[in-house]
Protein backbone atom coordinates (compact mmCIF):
# COMPACT_ATOMS: atom_id res chain seq x y z
CA UNK A 1 0.00 0.00 0.00
CA UNK A 2 1.25 3.47 -0.88
CA UNK A 3 0.32 6.51 1.15
CA UNK A 4 0.95 10.11 0.11
CA UNK A 5 0.91 12.68 2.91
CA UNK A 6 0.68 16.35 1.96
CA UNK A 7 2.76 18.60 4.18
CA UNK A 8 2.77 22.38 4.24
CA UNK A 9 5.07 24.86 5.92
CA UNK A 10 3.20 27.41 8.04
CA UNK A 11 4.13 30.11 10.54
CA UNK A 12 3.93 28.96 14.15
CA UNK A 13 0.52 29.57 15.75
CA UNK A 14 1.99 32.20 18.07
CA UNK A 15 3.68 34.20 15.27
CA UNK A 16 3.07 37.90 15.05
CA UNK A 17 1.13 38.51 11.86
CA UNK A 18 2.41 41.51 9.93
CA UNK A 19 2.88 42.45 6.28
CA UNK A 20 5.50 44.27 4.20
CA UNK A 21 5.88 45.70 0.70
CA UNK A 22 2.73 47.78 0.90
CA UNK A 23 0.79 44.98 2.57
CA UNK A 24 1.39 42.59 -0.29
CA UNK A 25 3.75 40.16 1.46
CA UNK A 26 3.70 38.30 4.75
CA UNK A 27 6.45 39.63 7.00
CA UNK A 28 8.67 36.62 7.64
CA UNK A 29 11.03 38.46 10.00
CA UNK A 30 11.38 36.50 13.22
CA UNK A 31 8.79 33.94 12.19
CA UNK A 32 9.21 30.35 13.37
CA UNK A 33 8.13 27.91 10.71
CA UNK A 34 6.41 24.68 11.59
CA UNK A 35 4.73 21.78 9.83
CA UNK A 36 1.11 22.76 9.44
CA UNK A 37 -0.36 21.22 12.63
CA UNK A 38 -3.19 19.42 10.85
CA UNK A 39 -0.71 17.86 8.42
CA UNK A 40 1.60 16.80 11.23
CA UNK A 41 -0.50 15.78 14.21
CA UNK A 42 -3.34 14.17 12.36
CA UNK A 43 -2.55 13.11 8.82
CA UNK A 44 1.15 12.24 9.10
CA UNK A 45 0.88 10.54 12.48
CA UNK A 46 -2.15 8.52 11.35
CA UNK A 47 -0.24 7.44 8.23
CA UNK A 48 2.67 6.36 10.43
CA UNK A 49 0.29 4.34 12.60
CA UNK A 50 -1.10 2.63 9.49
CA UNK A 51 2.43 1.72 8.46
CA UNK A 52 3.20 0.40 11.94
CA UNK A 53 0.19 -1.90 11.56
CA UNK A 54 1.22 -2.85 8.03
CA UNK A 55 5.03 -2.58 7.63
CA UNK A 56 4.78 -3.33 3.92
CA UNK A 57 3.17 0.08 3.40
CA UNK A 58 5.24 2.98 2.12
CA UNK A 59 4.72 6.61 3.03
CA UNK A 60 5.76 9.44 0.75
CA UNK A 61 5.55 13.03 1.88
CA UNK A 62 4.94 15.83 -0.55
CA UNK A 63 5.32 19.55 -0.16
CA UNK A 64 4.84 22.23 -2.79
CA UNK A 65 7.20 25.07 -2.06
CA UNK A 66 10.67 26.48 -2.47
CA UNK A 67 13.88 25.31 -0.79
CA UNK A 68 12.86 27.09 2.44
CA UNK A 69 10.41 24.24 3.00
CA UNK A 70 13.18 21.64 3.28
CA UNK A 71 13.82 21.94 7.06
CA UNK A 72 10.10 21.39 7.58
CA UNK A 73 10.01 18.32 5.37
CA UNK A 74 13.09 16.91 7.14
CA UNK A 75 11.29 17.46 10.42
CA UNK A 76 8.31 15.57 9.05
CA UNK A 77 10.60 12.76 7.88
CA UNK A 78 11.98 12.58 11.44
CA UNK A 79 8.51 11.60 12.60
CA UNK A 80 8.22 8.96 9.90
CA UNK A 81 7.76 8.33 6.22
CA UNK A 82 10.08 6.71 3.70
CA UNK A 83 10.87 9.55 1.35
CA UNK A 84 9.79 13.05 0.44
CA UNK A 85 9.06 14.95 -2.73
CA UNK A 86 9.29 18.71 -3.02
CA UNK A 87 7.72 20.41 -6.00
CA UNK A 88 9.87 23.45 -6.51
CA UNK A 89 7.63 26.52 -6.78
CA UNK A 90 6.60 29.66 -4.91
CA UNK A 91 3.06 29.72 -6.21
CA UNK A 92 0.42 29.80 -3.50
CA UNK A 93 -2.76 29.37 -5.57
CA UNK A 94 -4.69 26.38 -4.23
CA UNK A 95 -5.49 25.01 -7.69
CA UNK A 96 -1.88 25.34 -8.81
CA UNK A 97 -0.69 23.46 -5.72
CA UNK A 98 -3.40 20.81 -6.00
CA UNK A 99 -2.52 20.23 -9.66
CA UNK A 100 1.14 19.62 -8.70
CA UNK A 101 0.15 17.15 -5.99
CA UNK A 102 -2.32 15.44 -8.34
CA UNK A 103 0.43 15.04 -10.94
CA UNK A 104 2.76 13.36 -8.44
CA UNK A 105 -0.16 11.28 -7.14
CA UNK A 106 -1.01 10.02 -10.63
CA UNK A 107 2.61 9.09 -11.32
CA UNK A 108 2.98 7.33 -7.99
CA UNK A 109 -0.28 5.39 -7.99
CA UNK A 110 -1.13 6.00 -4.32
CA UNK A 111 -3.90 4.15 -2.53
CA UNK A 112 -4.36 6.82 0.07
CA UNK A 113 -3.77 10.56 0.05
CA UNK A 114 -3.91 12.44 3.35
CA UNK A 115 -4.08 16.21 3.80
CA UNK A 116 -4.67 18.31 6.91
CA UNK A 117 -8.15 19.81 7.18
CA UNK A 118 -6.69 23.21 6.33
CA UNK A 119 -3.45 25.15 6.67
CA UNK A 120 -3.33 27.60 9.54
CA UNK A 121 -2.15 30.41 7.27
CA UNK A 122 -4.55 30.46 4.29
CA UNK A 123 -7.35 28.46 5.94
CA UNK A 124 -8.79 27.43 2.58
CA UNK A 125 -9.58 23.78 3.33
CA UNK A 126 -9.34 23.35 -0.44
CA UNK A 127 -6.35 21.20 -1.40
CA UNK A 128 -7.86 17.82 -0.49
CA UNK A 129 -11.05 18.37 -2.47
CA UNK A 130 -9.17 19.70 -5.48
CA UNK A 131 -6.68 16.83 -5.50
CA UNK A 132 -9.54 14.33 -5.18
CA UNK A 133 -11.28 15.91 -8.17
CA UNK A 134 -8.10 15.97 -10.25
CA UNK A 135 -7.28 12.32 -9.57
CA UNK A 136 -10.98 11.37 -9.76
CA UNK A 137 -11.10 9.74 -6.32
CA UNK A 138 -13.75 9.92 -3.63
CA UNK A 139 -13.06 12.54 -0.95
CA UNK A 140 -13.63 12.29 2.78
CA UNK A 141 -13.38 15.76 4.28
CA UNK A 142 -12.80 16.62 7.94
CA UNK A 143 -12.16 13.06 9.04
CA UNK A 144 -11.82 12.40 12.76
CA UNK A 145 -11.21 8.62 12.49
CA UNK A 146 -9.74 6.40 9.82
CA UNK A 147 -9.38 2.64 9.89
CA UNK A 148 -8.40 0.20 7.19
CA UNK A 149 -9.63 -3.30 6.64
CA UNK A 150 -7.85 -4.63 3.59
CA UNK A 151 -8.66 -2.16 0.86
CA UNK A 152 -11.79 -0.79 2.51
CA UNK A 153 -11.57 2.25 4.76
CA UNK A 154 -14.00 3.02 7.56
CA UNK A 155 -14.02 6.69 8.41
CA UNK A 156 -15.81 9.10 10.69
CA UNK A 157 -16.18 12.61 9.40
CA UNK A 158 -17.58 15.83 10.74
CA UNK A 159 -20.76 17.14 9.14
CA UNK A 160 -22.82 20.18 10.11
CA UNK A 161 -24.19 19.50 13.58
CA UNK A 162 -22.76 16.02 13.99
CA UNK A 163 -20.75 13.25 12.43
CA UNK A 164 -21.22 10.37 10.06
CA UNK A 165 -19.54 7.03 9.59
CA UNK A 166 -18.78 5.89 6.07
CA UNK A 167 -17.12 3.09 4.17
CA UNK A 168 -15.14 3.57 1.01
CA UNK A 169 -12.89 1.41 -1.15
CA UNK A 170 -9.36 2.70 -1.82
CA UNK A 171 -8.07 4.83 -3.45
CA UNK A 172 -9.40 7.77 -1.49
CA UNK A 173 -8.37 11.31 -0.50
CA UNK A 174 -8.92 12.23 3.16
CA UNK A 175 -8.60 15.56 4.96
CA UNK A 176 -7.67 14.95 8.57
CA UNK A 177 -8.44 16.75 11.79
CA UNK A 178 -8.44 16.28 15.53
CA UNK A 179 -9.30 12.76 16.61
CA UNK A 180 -7.33 10.97 13.87
CA UNK A 181 -4.20 10.55 15.97
CA UNK A 182 -2.28 12.02 18.88
CA UNK A 183 0.66 14.36 18.49
CA UNK A 184 4.11 12.71 18.52
CA UNK A 185 7.55 14.12 19.24
CA UNK A 186 10.33 12.94 16.90
CA UNK A 187 13.00 10.91 18.70
CA UNK A 188 16.76 11.06 18.12
CA UNK A 189 16.72 7.93 15.98
CA UNK A 190 14.05 9.45 13.77
CA UNK A 191 15.97 12.72 13.46
CA UNK A 192 19.16 10.88 12.47
CA UNK A 193 17.31 8.66 10.00
CA UNK A 194 15.60 11.67 8.41
CA UNK A 195 18.97 13.09 7.33
CA UNK A 196 19.56 10.28 4.90
CA UNK A 197 16.01 9.69 3.68
CA UNK A 198 15.58 10.61 0.01
CA UNK A 199 14.21 14.08 -0.66
CA UNK A 200 13.44 14.38 -4.33
CA UNK A 201 13.03 17.81 -5.88
CA UNK A 202 10.84 17.96 -8.98
CA UNK A 203 9.99 20.94 -11.15
CA UNK A 204 6.32 21.95 -11.36
CA UNK A 205 4.16 21.07 -14.34
CA UNK A 206 2.75 23.97 -16.32
CA UNK A 207 -0.58 25.01 -14.80
CA UNK A 208 -2.34 28.36 -14.81
CA UNK A 209 -2.83 29.79 -11.33
CA UNK A 210 -6.47 30.74 -10.95
CA UNK A 211 -6.08 33.20 -8.07
CA UNK A 212 -3.46 35.58 -6.77
CA UNK A 213 -3.25 37.54 -3.55
CA UNK A 214 -3.54 41.24 -4.19
CA UNK A 215 -3.00 42.49 -0.66
CA UNK A 216 -3.34 41.76 3.02
CA UNK A 217 -5.04 43.70 5.73
CA UNK A 218 -4.99 43.54 9.52
CA UNK A 219 -8.29 43.85 11.36
CA UNK A 220 -8.77 47.16 13.18
CA UNK A 221 -7.27 47.04 16.64
CA UNK A 222 -9.76 46.36 19.41
CA UNK A 223 -10.71 49.52 21.27
CA UNK A 224 -9.72 47.81 24.50
CA UNK A 225 -11.80 45.96 26.97
CA UNK A 226 -14.49 47.78 28.95
CA UNK A 227 -14.40 46.37 32.42
CA UNK A 228 -17.56 46.16 34.49
CA UNK A 229 -17.51 45.62 38.24
CA UNK A 230 -18.49 42.09 39.28
CA UNK A 231 -21.28 43.42 41.48
CA UNK A 232 -22.79 45.40 38.61
CA UNK A 233 -23.77 42.80 36.00
CA UNK A 234 -26.84 44.87 35.15
CA UNK A 235 -24.46 47.37 33.60
CA UNK A 236 -22.93 44.62 31.41
CA UNK A 237 -26.41 43.62 30.26
CA UNK A 238 -27.21 47.26 29.48
CA UNK A 239 -23.99 47.64 27.45
CA UNK A 240 -24.59 44.42 25.53
CA UNK A 241 -28.15 45.45 24.80
CA UNK A 242 -27.80 49.17 24.08
CA UNK A 243 -24.20 49.67 22.97
CA UNK A 244 -23.15 46.40 21.37
CA UNK A 245 -26.71 45.45 20.37
CA UNK A 246 -25.66 41.86 20.86
CA UNK A 247 -28.60 40.72 23.01
Amino acid at each position, binding site marked *: MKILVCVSKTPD*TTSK*IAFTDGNTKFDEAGVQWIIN*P*YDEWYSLVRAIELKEANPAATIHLITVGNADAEPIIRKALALGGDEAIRVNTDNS*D*AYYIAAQIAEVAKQGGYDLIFTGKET*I*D*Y*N*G*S*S*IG*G*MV*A*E*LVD*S*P*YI*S*LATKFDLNGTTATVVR*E*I*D*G*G*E*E*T*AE*VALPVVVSC*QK*GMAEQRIPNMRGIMAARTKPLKVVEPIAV*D*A*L*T*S*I*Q*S*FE*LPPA*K*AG*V*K*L*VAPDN*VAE*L*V*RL*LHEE*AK*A*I
Partner: protein
Amino acid sequence: MSVLIFIDQSEGHVKKSSLEALTYGADVAKQLGTTAEGIVLGTVTEDLTALGKYGVSKIHQVSNAALNNVDAQVYASVISEAATASGATVIVFSHNQTGKAVAARVAAKLKAGLVAGACALPNTSNGFSVKKTVFSGKAYAHVNILSAVKVISLNPNSYKTVATEGTAVVEALAVTVNEPKVKITAVNKITGEVPLTEADIVVSGGRGLKGPEHWGILLDLAKELGAATACSRPVGDAHWRPHHEHVGQTGVQVAPNLYIAIGISGAIQHLAGVNRSKVIVVINKDPEAPFFKAADYGIVGDAFEVVPQLTAAIQKMKAGA
Protein backbone atom coordinates in the same frame (compact mmCIF):
# COMPACT_ATOMS: atom_id res chain seq x y z
CA MET B 1 -23.97 34.90 -17.16
CA SER B 2 -25.59 34.38 -13.76
CA VAL B 3 -24.77 33.66 -10.15
CA LEU B 4 -25.54 30.16 -8.90
CA ILE B 5 -25.91 29.64 -5.16
CA PHE B 6 -25.70 26.21 -3.61
CA ILE B 7 -28.47 25.80 -1.02
CA ASP B 8 -27.38 23.36 1.66
CA GLN B 9 -30.09 21.45 3.47
CA SER B 10 -30.23 19.05 6.34
CA GLU B 11 -33.17 16.72 6.85
CA GLY B 12 -35.28 18.75 4.47
CA HIS B 13 -34.53 22.14 6.02
CA VAL B 14 -32.47 24.88 4.46
CA LYS B 15 -29.54 25.81 6.68
CA LYS B 16 -29.15 29.32 8.05
CA SER B 17 -25.70 29.56 6.49
CA SER B 18 -27.35 28.99 3.11
CA LEU B 19 -29.67 31.94 3.64
CA GLU B 20 -26.55 34.04 4.13
CA ALA B 21 -25.09 32.56 0.94
CA LEU B 22 -28.34 33.35 -0.91
CA THR B 23 -28.34 36.98 0.25
CA TYR B 24 -24.66 37.27 -0.64
CA GLY B 25 -25.07 35.65 -4.04
CA ALA B 26 -28.05 37.87 -4.86
CA ASP B 27 -25.95 40.93 -3.96
CA VAL B 28 -23.10 39.69 -6.18
CA ALA B 29 -25.62 39.29 -9.00
CA LYS B 30 -26.84 42.86 -8.47
CA GLN B 31 -23.25 44.06 -8.59
CA LEU B 32 -22.68 42.25 -11.87
CA GLY B 33 -26.07 43.24 -13.31
CA THR B 34 -27.26 39.67 -13.64
CA THR B 35 -29.65 37.22 -12.02
CA ALA B 36 -29.16 34.93 -9.03
CA GLU B 37 -30.35 31.35 -9.08
CA GLY B 38 -30.19 28.64 -6.45
CA ILE B 39 -29.62 24.92 -6.60
CA VAL B 40 -30.83 22.47 -3.98
CA LEU B 41 -30.10 18.76 -3.87
CA GLY B 42 -32.11 16.04 -2.16
CA THR B 43 -35.54 15.91 -0.57
CA VAL B 44 -36.67 19.24 0.86
CA THR B 45 -39.82 19.66 2.92
CA GLU B 46 -39.70 23.44 3.06
CA ASP B 47 -41.44 25.74 0.59
CA LEU B 48 -38.57 26.64 -1.72
CA THR B 49 -40.48 29.35 -3.60
CA ALA B 50 -40.28 31.42 -0.39
CA LEU B 51 -36.50 31.62 -0.80
CA GLY B 52 -37.23 34.22 -3.48
CA LYS B 53 -37.27 36.75 -0.67
CA TYR B 54 -33.50 36.42 -0.40
CA GLY B 55 -33.14 37.62 -3.97
CA VAL B 56 -33.07 34.50 -6.15
CA SER B 57 -35.39 34.34 -9.12
CA LYS B 58 -35.12 30.64 -9.83
CA ILE B 59 -34.22 27.50 -7.91
CA HIS B 60 -33.02 24.37 -9.63
CA GLN B 61 -33.98 21.29 -7.70
CA VAL B 62 -32.64 17.79 -8.04
CA SER B 63 -34.95 16.02 -5.61
CA ASN B 64 -33.24 12.67 -5.84
CA ALA B 65 -33.28 10.99 -2.42
CA ALA B 66 -29.81 9.60 -3.19
CA LEU B 67 -28.61 13.17 -2.64
CA ASN B 68 -29.86 13.42 0.95
CA ASN B 69 -26.37 12.64 2.20
CA VAL B 70 -23.52 14.82 1.02
CA ASP B 71 -21.07 12.99 -1.22
CA ALA B 72 -18.45 15.46 -2.38
CA GLN B 73 -17.81 13.69 -5.67
CA VAL B 74 -21.47 13.28 -6.65
CA TYR B 75 -22.43 16.76 -5.44
CA ALA B 76 -19.57 18.37 -7.35
CA SER B 77 -20.54 16.60 -10.51
CA VAL B 78 -24.22 17.65 -10.24
CA ILE B 79 -23.46 21.26 -9.27
CA SER B 80 -20.83 21.67 -12.00
CA GLU B 81 -23.20 20.32 -14.62
CA ALA B 82 -25.94 22.67 -13.42
CA ALA B 83 -23.55 25.62 -13.38
CA THR B 84 -22.44 24.96 -16.93
CA ALA B 85 -26.01 24.41 -18.16
CA SER B 86 -27.25 27.64 -16.57
CA GLY B 87 -24.24 29.63 -17.75
CA ALA B 88 -23.21 30.58 -14.21
CA THR B 89 -20.02 32.63 -13.94
CA VAL B 90 -20.04 32.89 -10.16
CA ILE B 91 -20.88 29.94 -7.90
CA VAL B 92 -21.46 30.63 -4.21
CA PHE B 93 -21.25 28.16 -1.32
CA SER B 94 -21.30 28.55 2.43
CA HIS B 95 -17.88 27.73 3.86
CA ASN B 96 -19.52 25.24 6.22
CA GLN B 97 -18.69 21.54 6.41
CA THR B 98 -20.58 20.81 3.20
CA GLY B 99 -19.01 23.72 1.37
CA LYS B 100 -15.55 22.66 2.54
CA ALA B 101 -16.16 19.24 1.01
CA VAL B 102 -17.76 20.31 -2.25
CA ALA B 103 -16.64 23.81 -3.34
CA ALA B 104 -13.01 22.83 -3.94
CA ARG B 105 -14.07 19.89 -6.11
CA VAL B 106 -16.39 22.10 -8.16
CA ALA B 107 -13.63 24.68 -8.57
CA ALA B 108 -11.14 22.05 -9.76
CA LYS B 109 -13.67 20.45 -12.10
CA LEU B 110 -14.53 23.76 -13.75
CA LYS B 111 -10.97 25.15 -13.54
CA ALA B 112 -12.48 28.04 -11.64
CA GLY B 113 -10.55 30.13 -9.13
CA LEU B 114 -11.76 29.61 -5.57
CA VAL B 115 -11.85 32.00 -2.66
CA ALA B 116 -12.59 29.85 0.38
CA GLY B 117 -13.73 31.66 3.50
CA ALA B 118 -14.88 34.94 1.94
CA CYS B 119 -16.19 37.62 4.28
CA ALA B 120 -17.23 40.49 1.99
CA LEU B 121 -18.65 41.21 -1.44
CA PRO B 122 -16.22 41.13 -4.36
CA ASN B 123 -14.49 44.30 -5.46
CA THR B 124 -15.04 44.50 -9.21
CA SER B 125 -13.53 47.93 -9.80
CA ASN B 126 -10.32 46.41 -11.11
CA GLY B 127 -10.69 42.71 -11.83
CA PHE B 128 -12.54 40.55 -9.33
CA SER B 129 -11.10 40.47 -5.85
CA VAL B 130 -12.66 38.92 -2.78
CA LYS B 131 -11.74 39.55 0.85
CA LYS B 132 -11.20 36.45 2.96
CA THR B 133 -9.93 35.66 6.43
CA VAL B 134 -6.41 34.27 6.71
CA PHE B 135 -4.06 33.34 9.54
CA SER B 136 -6.95 31.87 11.52
CA GLY B 137 -8.83 35.15 11.68
CA LYS B 138 -5.82 37.29 12.52
CA ALA B 139 -5.76 39.00 9.11
CA TYR B 140 -7.54 39.36 5.79
CA ALA B 141 -6.36 38.81 2.24
CA HIS B 142 -7.79 40.35 -0.91
CA VAL B 143 -7.64 37.58 -3.48
CA ASN B 144 -8.00 38.16 -7.21
CA ILE B 145 -9.83 35.48 -9.13
CA LEU B 146 -8.29 35.26 -12.58
CA SER B 147 -10.52 32.66 -14.25
CA ALA B 148 -13.76 33.29 -16.15
CA VAL B 149 -15.80 31.15 -13.77
CA LYS B 150 -15.40 31.99 -10.10
CA VAL B 151 -16.21 30.02 -6.96
CA ILE B 152 -16.68 31.72 -3.60
CA SER B 153 -17.40 30.05 -0.29
CA LEU B 154 -18.70 32.44 2.32
CA ASN B 155 -17.72 32.22 5.99
CA PRO B 156 -20.81 31.47 8.09
CA ASN B 157 -22.00 34.44 10.21
CA SER B 158 -20.07 36.97 8.17
CA TYR B 159 -22.80 38.28 5.88
CA LYS B 160 -26.14 39.51 7.14
CA THR B 161 -29.23 37.77 5.83
CA VAL B 162 -31.72 40.18 4.31
CA ALA B 163 -35.24 39.03 3.50
CA THR B 164 -37.48 41.18 1.33
CA GLU B 165 -40.44 40.36 -0.92
CA GLY B 166 -40.38 37.89 -3.75
CA THR B 167 -40.93 34.31 -4.73
CA ALA B 168 -38.69 32.03 -6.70
CA VAL B 169 -39.66 29.68 -9.48
CA VAL B 170 -38.71 26.11 -8.62
CA GLU B 171 -37.68 23.97 -11.55
CA ALA B 172 -36.77 20.31 -11.53
CA LEU B 173 -33.34 19.89 -13.04
CA ALA B 174 -32.50 16.78 -15.01
CA VAL B 175 -28.86 15.91 -14.43
CA THR B 176 -26.85 12.74 -14.12
CA VAL B 177 -26.65 11.55 -10.53
CA ASN B 178 -23.86 9.00 -10.19
CA GLU B 179 -23.82 6.27 -7.60
CA PRO B 180 -21.69 7.51 -4.66
CA LYS B 181 -18.50 5.57 -4.00
CA VAL B 182 -18.69 6.44 -0.32
CA LYS B 183 -21.30 4.46 1.61
CA ILE B 184 -22.71 6.19 4.69
CA THR B 185 -23.29 3.59 7.39
CA ALA B 186 -24.31 5.79 10.32
CA VAL B 187 -25.26 9.41 10.93
CA ASN B 188 -25.11 10.90 14.38
CA LYS B 189 -26.55 14.39 14.57
CA ILE B 190 -26.81 16.32 17.75
CA THR B 191 -30.43 17.31 17.82
CA GLY B 192 -32.26 19.85 19.92
CA GLU B 193 -29.25 22.13 20.23
CA VAL B 194 -28.26 25.22 18.30
CA PRO B 195 -25.44 24.13 15.91
CA LEU B 196 -22.28 25.80 17.14
CA THR B 197 -21.13 27.23 13.81
CA GLU B 198 -24.53 28.78 13.11
CA ALA B 199 -25.27 30.19 16.55
CA ASP B 200 -25.71 33.94 17.04
CA ILE B 201 -24.57 33.66 20.63
CA VAL B 202 -22.06 31.19 22.06
CA VAL B 203 -21.46 30.68 25.78
CA SER B 204 -18.20 28.91 26.40
CA GLY B 205 -16.54 27.53 29.52
CA GLY B 206 -12.99 26.71 30.49
CA ARG B 207 -11.00 25.12 33.26
CA GLY B 208 -11.99 28.00 35.52
CA LEU B 209 -15.29 26.19 36.06
CA LYS B 210 -13.34 23.46 37.88
CA GLY B 211 -15.38 20.45 36.81
CA PRO B 212 -18.28 19.18 34.69
CA GLU B 213 -20.59 19.28 37.70
CA HIS B 214 -20.40 23.08 37.64
CA TRP B 215 -21.71 23.49 34.08
CA GLY B 216 -25.27 24.17 35.26
CA ILE B 217 -24.71 27.92 35.63
CA LEU B 218 -23.33 28.09 32.09
CA LEU B 219 -26.20 26.05 30.65
CA ASP B 220 -28.73 28.29 32.42
CA LEU B 221 -27.13 31.39 30.90
CA ALA B 222 -27.03 29.76 27.45
CA LYS B 223 -30.67 28.77 27.73
CA GLU B 224 -31.69 32.29 28.71
CA LEU B 225 -29.84 33.69 25.68
CA GLY B 226 -30.84 30.94 23.23
CA ALA B 227 -27.12 30.35 22.84
CA ALA B 228 -25.04 27.37 21.79
CA THR B 229 -22.55 26.05 24.33
CA ALA B 230 -18.85 25.55 23.74
CA CYS B 231 -15.70 24.87 25.71
CA SER B 232 -11.93 25.25 25.64
CA ARG B 233 -9.56 22.47 24.63
CA PRO B 234 -8.59 21.28 28.13
CA VAL B 235 -12.28 20.92 28.97
CA GLY B 236 -12.92 18.84 25.86
CA ASP B 237 -9.78 16.77 26.40
CA ALA B 238 -10.79 16.06 30.00
CA HIS B 239 -14.24 14.95 28.73
CA TRP B 240 -16.01 17.46 30.94
CA ARG B 241 -17.92 18.39 27.80
CA PRO B 242 -18.41 16.57 24.48
CA HIS B 243 -15.58 16.91 21.95
CA HIS B 244 -17.70 18.68 19.36
CA GLU B 245 -18.03 21.66 21.72
CA HIS B 246 -14.29 22.39 21.65
CA VAL B 247 -13.62 25.71 19.94
CA GLY B 248 -10.14 26.87 19.02
CA GLN B 249 -7.41 26.33 16.48
CA THR B 250 -7.79 22.55 16.43
CA GLY B 251 -11.48 22.49 17.28
CA VAL B 252 -14.44 24.31 15.81
CA GLN B 253 -13.98 27.86 14.58
CA VAL B 254 -16.91 30.10 15.39
CA ALA B 255 -17.88 33.65 14.50
CA PRO B 256 -21.03 34.49 16.44
CA ASN B 257 -22.38 37.96 17.17
CA LEU B 258 -21.63 37.42 20.82
CA TYR B 259 -19.08 35.09 22.44
CA ILE B 260 -19.13 34.84 26.21
CA ALA B 261 -16.03 33.16 27.65
CA ILE B 262 -16.30 31.97 31.23
CA GLY B 263 -13.18 30.84 33.06
CA ILE B 264 -11.10 30.64 29.87
CA SER B 265 -7.66 32.24 30.02
CA GLY B 266 -7.54 32.89 26.26
CA ALA B 267 -4.50 31.06 24.94
CA ILE B 268 -3.64 32.05 21.39
CA GLN B 269 -4.85 28.66 20.13
CA HIS B 270 -8.26 29.33 21.66
CA LEU B 271 -8.41 32.86 20.24
CA ALA B 272 -7.73 31.47 16.76
CA GLY B 273 -11.11 29.75 16.95
CA VAL B 274 -13.11 32.70 18.23
CA ASN B 275 -11.47 35.93 17.10
CA ARG B 276 -13.96 36.44 14.29
CA SER B 277 -16.73 36.88 16.87
CA LYS B 278 -18.25 40.36 16.70
CA VAL B 279 -18.49 40.99 20.44
CA ILE B 280 -16.46 39.12 23.04
CA VAL B 281 -17.28 39.11 26.75
CA VAL B 282 -14.76 37.61 29.15
CA ILE B 283 -15.53 36.60 32.70
CA ASN B 284 -12.43 35.53 34.59
CA LYS B 285 -11.17 35.99 38.12
CA ASP B 286 -7.60 36.51 36.90
CA PRO B 287 -7.18 40.13 35.77
CA GLU B 288 -4.01 39.06 33.91
CA ALA B 289 -5.87 36.52 31.73
CA PRO B 290 -4.74 37.23 28.12
CA PHE B 291 -8.33 36.91 26.93
CA PHE B 292 -9.12 40.40 28.32
CA LYS B 293 -6.86 41.87 25.62
CA ALA B 294 -9.08 40.37 22.92
CA ALA B 295 -12.34 41.19 24.69
CA ASP B 296 -14.83 44.00 24.20
CA TYR B 297 -16.33 43.69 27.67
CA GLY B 298 -14.99 42.00 30.73
CA ILE B 299 -15.72 41.22 34.33
CA VAL B 300 -12.88 40.37 36.66
CA GLY B 301 -14.69 38.19 39.14
CA ASP B 302 -15.71 34.78 40.34
CA ALA B 303 -17.73 33.01 37.65
CA PHE B 304 -19.75 31.12 40.25
CA GLU B 305 -21.09 34.44 41.54
CA VAL B 306 -21.14 36.49 38.35
CA VAL B 307 -22.76 34.05 35.93
CA PRO B 308 -25.99 33.37 37.88
CA GLN B 309 -26.35 37.12 38.44
CA LEU B 310 -25.86 37.70 34.73
CA THR B 311 -28.54 35.15 33.87
CA ALA B 312 -30.92 36.85 36.30
CA ALA B 313 -30.12 40.32 34.93
CA ILE B 314 -30.81 39.18 31.37
CA GLN B 315 -34.07 37.63 32.50
CA LYS B 316 -34.98 40.91 34.13
CA MET B 317 -34.06 42.92 31.04
CA LYS B 318 -36.17 40.67 28.83
CA ALA B 319 -39.12 40.94 31.19
CA GLY B 320 -38.81 44.72 31.11
CA ALA B 321 -38.38 44.97 27.35
